[in-house]
């Protein structure tokens, strides 16, 4: 039972992480290849604060704040660059983060930080808490999608030049997407740190950034339900198939490539098309 509870918690954390990237990449169309850095910022801040005795419920908003602030700065630097260059910039930020962590003894260096405690919850309680967080963030995403912010994000993802001609302040909206998405990644990072009770530089590198991007693409870029299902399933894969652990980059990287090549609208698109066909058949009868 302990195993299932722990797996469930991991899945909820992956869902949160994928939804946070989906907000930036799926809703607003801004690619990020370094999203794990923001997970890491949240995780490291929570770990340090936990060690200093700061209460759990206070570390969560602080982790959001710091990750969101750094995310906004990264967003600022990338406002003037186009999509392909944004990919490189964010990838650079990802490497920079891991590079810094490795160098700093007070951040645990290569060894990482162990013994992170302080949530004061049972395993079951903690699982329920992370699942609740995931549900709240899903609700937020669904709300956001239907608000005028979501409609503007959609327009920016499709054609930002035309949005400008409609009087939309595109840079501000991109920053908003970065701020919200990276803040949620920071929250996820804090939950991650308390769950695994150990963090190290390897947990927040390029592989993790590619993994979460593959979750978003497999689910269907922009689709809240699709991304949730994909993140839950894909995060459980390494637990079900032990060998994946060693070949993560290969597995998730190929998945990413194959999906973009053959099913660019992801599972959500497959389901939509399948339903559409069935409806058409029923109408035909």
């Amino acid at each position, binding site marked *: 039972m302990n195993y299932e509870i722990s797996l469930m918690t991991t899945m909820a954390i992956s869902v949160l992480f994928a939804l946070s990237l989906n907000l930036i990449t799926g809703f607003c169309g801004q690619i990020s290849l370094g999203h794990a850095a923001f997970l890491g910022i949240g995780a490291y801040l929570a770990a340090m604060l936990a060690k200093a005795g700061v209460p759990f419920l206070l570390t969560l908003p602080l982790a959001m704040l710091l990750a969101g602030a750094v995310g906004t700065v990264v967003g600022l630097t990338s406002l003037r660059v186009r999509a392909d260059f944004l990919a490189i910039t964010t990838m650079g930020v990802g490497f920079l983060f891991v590079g810094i962590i490795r160098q700093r003894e007070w951040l645990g260096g290569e060894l990482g930080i162990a013994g992170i405690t302080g949530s004061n919850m049972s395993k079951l309680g903690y699982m329920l808490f992370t699942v609740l967080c995931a549900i709240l963030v899903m609700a937020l995403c669904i*709300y*956001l999608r*239907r*608000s*005028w*912010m979501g*409609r*503007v994000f*959609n*327009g920016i993802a*499709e*054609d930002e*030049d*035309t949005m*400008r*001609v*409609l*009087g*939309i*302040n*595109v840079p*501000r*909206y991109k*920053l*908003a997407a970065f701020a919200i998405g990276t803040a949620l990644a920071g929250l996820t990072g804090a939950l991650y740190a308390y769950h695994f009770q150990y963090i190290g530089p390897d947990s927040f590198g390029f592989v993790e950034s590619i993994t979460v991007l593959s979750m978003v693409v497999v689910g269907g870029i922009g689709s809240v339900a699709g991304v949730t299902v994909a993140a839950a399933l894909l995060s459980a894969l390494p637990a079900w198939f032990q060998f994946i652990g060693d070949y993560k980059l290969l597995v998730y990287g190929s998945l990413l490539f194959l999906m973009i090549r053959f099913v660019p609208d992801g599972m959500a698109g497959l389901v939509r098309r399948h339903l559409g066909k069935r409806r058409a058949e029923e109408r035909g009868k």
Partner: protein
Amino acid sequence: MSAMASSLSTGPLLEVDRVTVRFGGVLAIDDVSFTVLRGDLLGLIGPNGAGKTTMLRAITGVVQQERGSVRLSGRPLDGMSIERRIRLGMALSQQLVKPFRDISVADNVALAAAYRKTLSPLRALLSLSQSAERRVAGELLERVGIARHAEDNPAVMPLGVLKRLEVARALALQPQLLLLDEPLAGLNSQEAESLATTISDINAQGVTIVLIEHNLREVLRICKNLVVLDNGRKIAEGDPKTVMHLETVRAAYLGSGAGDERRNRQHRGSDDA
């Protein structure tokens, strides 16, 4: 101080002052000046490649001028972002239509009509209702004559519908200065006449309009003033009848050889595609 304020509100709405735009080696606009008075319906005409579209793009900030200045109500716009200029009361209906293809025709217009709610991301996040915008969209689509396509997907609409969608979207911004780049393209003569009449009505309601159009019949019917460009230069301006009788203007149009005919065929072509 008060004299200045009053001169701002009574002076010309738009001043284009010795503007030059260059694309690499091509001099698209060469030292062009003209003013647009409040309430004017100004036709900006000239043969293909004259620089008309580039002029509107310089006014809205889509392209940057190399020299010269553009002022709206006496206020210099140079260096200002596109979206700020739009928020100052301009709207641009583009020659190349650019509808958002994964939302309906009506939602395209509603997106523009929501300009107050979308002023800042925070306000947009807190605004959910779209009934007011959908209502405005319905009215505007009716006005430009494509209400029956409100729920259709722009991806499958012919050019004539998309051009009118582009106009409706510009109108949804409730501009004081409306810039229209070939709104009648792709329409048959009956549709063109009806939309031209609508444009004239909108002008009569107090919206200042700059209209680029190759359909000279409608231009001469509704425009109050003309500015003629040729090869990036202004070759004439003034009252439409006088302007059209000028030798230079006739020569420019004849020189480009039955330009109207050729364009219509081009548009039909892209219509089918």
